[in-house]
């Protein structure tokens, strides 16, 4: 599970059980959820149970895991339960057992075996296309569309004038505003804290963030959430460079195509075309590989002129930033977008045709921190895009620099807040200790105070379930 799909997982987790059940009717969706959303151990458990004729007894499951790995097991089972993939059953002799939700199991089997007639992996268009587009064209198209969106968000904040954002559609603009990525104030657009973290993510995570925002607003537009999700997961399992027919799509999905074309996720030659091409943004939705950084042919993109957004892209494939231990930063790029992003937290001084240089200063970092960028975001952005020469050392960035960035950030924030619940007034020491241990195991414990039997957690659902089970046990015993 990568960082980019974890936000999709978060979104999926909060869906109600009916939506889950409906989603699991589509084999492509099930396969995509399995491939990208589940942690490794959850996958192992699912696969072990997939062809098992009887439910997996809980005792057997315990015996299968090493005793020191209970934490991993609980986490995996918790996610599976939350996504309603596994069902806990109790047989006549009160032995609890675990089994897969039948719809999920059926669809996953169909996906693995390639059986059934669900046609959920995309219907390739059989009609000969007179003007078939190349993969390179699709890449350029996706890149242009996506960078326009990013530049729209960043450009006006760092003062590139008001000319930016003319290529971005009205729907996209309102979506960005609705997702609180940008905010209009006094007729001037400003990027928000969420917007900053959005821009600094890798492309794949950006696409997911935007799509999740899209999903949240889908119901307002009269679209069914399941339809939208199914379509997104299907897009992730398509093949780049192949045209697919729109005939089997539902009306909702046809409506979606238009919006996705605006994002650069799919390409259609015209609005009424009966076929569509997924771009690299789409086919990497359900994989870890970077969406736009895999541009294959540097010569092909190097020659492109345009608004100056694309020409620097070829450097991204290998990384373009060099940070020295004296906080100087050199970036081999001529892309306005990258320069704009860098200038969010760097004091840039000089610009050459293919290089900008500057310095990470206390002022520049604390300015970034004040506007809502965290030090971790800066560090991960720098290390994700650092030059291949720097990638030879571990860690990629000089430690003095990363430490100093963190220290600069900490100057402003000495207190960490976390939302959650305080648990107190436990009747007995044993009960307190049991619950604390459980909270620690599932990883929600933030702070504890053994003397006063109090602790603080940032997630309540699991603890509630645990307490309920404990209470039942006590009732049975007493």
């Amino acid at each position: 599970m990568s960082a980019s799909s974890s936000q999709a997982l978060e979104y999926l987790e909060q869906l109600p059980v009916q939506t889950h059940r409906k989603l699991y009717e589509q084999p492509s969706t099930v396969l995509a959820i399995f491939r990208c959303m589940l942690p490794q151990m959850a996958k192992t458990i699912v696969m072990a149970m997939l062809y098992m004729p009887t439910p997996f007894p809980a005792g057997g499951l315990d015996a299968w895991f090493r005793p020191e790995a209970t934490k991993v097991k609980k986490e995996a089972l918790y996610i599976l339960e939350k996504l309603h993939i596994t069902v806990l059953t109790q047989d006549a002799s009160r032995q609890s057992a675990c089994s897969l939700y039948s719809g999920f199991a059926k669809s996953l089997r169909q996906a693995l075996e390639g059986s059934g007639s669900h046609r959920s992996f995309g219907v390739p268009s059989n009609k000969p296309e007179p003007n078939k587009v190349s993969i390179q064209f699709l890449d350029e198209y996706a890149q242009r569309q996506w960078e326009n969106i990013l530049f729209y968000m960043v450009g006006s904040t760092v003062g590139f004038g008001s000319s930016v954002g003319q290529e971005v559609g009205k729907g996209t603009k309102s979506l960005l505003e609705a997702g609180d990525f940008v905010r209009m104030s006094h007729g001037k657009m400003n990027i928000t804290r969420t917007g900053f973290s959005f821009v600094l993510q890798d492309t794949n995570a950006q696409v997911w963030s935007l799509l999740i925002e899209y999903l949240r607003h889908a119901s307002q537009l009269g679209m069914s959430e399941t339809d939208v999700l199914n379509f997104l997961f299907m897009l992730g399992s398509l093949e780049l460079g192949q045209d697919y027919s729109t005939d089997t799509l539902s009306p909702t999905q046809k409506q979606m195509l238009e919006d996705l074309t605006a994002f650069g996720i799919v390409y259609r030659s015209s609005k009424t075309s009966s076929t569509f091409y997924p771009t690299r943004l789409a086919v990497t939705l359900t994989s870890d590989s970077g969406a736009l950084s895999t541009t294959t042919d540097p010569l092909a993109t190097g020659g492109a002129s345009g608004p100056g957004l694309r020409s620097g892209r070829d450097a991204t494939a290998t990384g373009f930033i060099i940070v020295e231990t004296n906080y100087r930063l050199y970036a081999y790029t001529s892309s306005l977008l990258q320069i704009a992003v860098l200038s969010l937290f760097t004091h840039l001084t000089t610009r050459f045709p293919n290089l900008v240089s500057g310095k990470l200063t206390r002022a520049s970092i604390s300015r970034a921190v004040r506007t809502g960028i965290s030090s971790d975001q800066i560090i991960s952005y720098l290390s994700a895009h650092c030059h291949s020469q720097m990638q030879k050392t571990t860690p990629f960035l000089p430690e003095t620099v990363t430490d100093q960035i963190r220290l600069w950030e900490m100057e402003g924030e000495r207190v960490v807040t976390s939302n959650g619940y305080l648990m107190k007034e436990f009747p007995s020491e044993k009960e307190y200790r049991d619950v604390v241990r459980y909270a620690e195991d599932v990883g929600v414990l933030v702070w504890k105070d053994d003397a006063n039997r109090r602790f603080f957690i940032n997630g309540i659902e699991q603890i509630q379930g645990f307490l309920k089970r404990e209470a039942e046990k006590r009732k049975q015993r007493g």
Partner: protein
Amino acid sequence: MNDIDGTVRTVVKDEGPPPSLLTIVLDTNPHAWAHLSSTLPLSTALANILVFINAHLASGNANCVAVIASHSHKACFLYPSPTPPSPQPHHGASNGEVEMNGPADRPIYSVSDNPNKYRPFATIETAILNNFAKLIDETDEAHLSATPTTLIGGALSLALSFINKSTIHHSPTSTHADALLSLADADGKHSERTTLTSRILIVSVSGDLANQYIPMMNSIFAAQRKRVPIDIIKLAGDTVLLQQASDATGGVYMKPERPEGLLQYLMMGFLPDAFARKTLIMPSAGGVDFRAACFCHRKVVDIGYVCSVCLSIFCEPTLPDNLCMTCGSYLSLRSAQMNPPALIPRKKKKKRRAGGTDSATPGGSTPAGSSTPMHG
């Protein structure tokens, strides 16, 4: 409060497990599968293995797979499809080869545009089925009658070389010079950087592989050194060798009682990769038979004779010319058998005059601690 002081300097970018390469060595020995045909025909087994491969690919986005057939007369790749050697300029009829298999090369199965199948699965499946059909077509009666067993040693070395190659490709700093460097020194330094975790799964049906003892053992030691676990699923027959292979490399050994449930065995016992195995209790062979096979007749022996120079094992003392068959050094085993080992009588220790500490063992007549049983 410790987590905000920035002591964790390495930015954890990807928490996911490393990509894993699964190399399946499929024993396609026709003789053995003929025996199994009533419970588990080869076609069913292959279908099960294909589902298993899909499950493996679905378990991780960067996971990859290789399939090698260990047939009766040759070992060859089923996936990735072997690339045909680059077309050489024709030397007339110098090698006497006539292009007879031109039309037969046509793929029997083609990647259909099946909307019910995930595309990457379909490509791999088609490649495996095509190559397998080709392999079966190439097998004629002469091949079958020549040998009742399978070339597992060759297949294993193919698997190991493929794993080595992929590991170098996958290594994060895989510049050309580095690849050469890591080829040159295969020591720990390289394996630290490795991000690809590989394992070998042998689906074995043939018994009696003792005639390949030496190549097998060499492959096993190579795998051990490269930290590649060898998993064995033994559907029929029994060999000492394969048990040792999984034991030495830390792999899983399973001999299913009901071969028809192959898929469930595969899914539960063999799907977890090295990362997942850290948290699971994996099945293993209970008692491992560590017997070796002799180098002269390829028989599994309980007690044998060992060359003192090269440690080759022989089952009987009559060697031609009293020379070791492996290293050629003089080795007279006959004398070892004829004369019982001589026992040099123990010299009397000089009695110490000073101090009466020795009073417990008067005269030093007690034999020294290690009592070697002697033949009378």
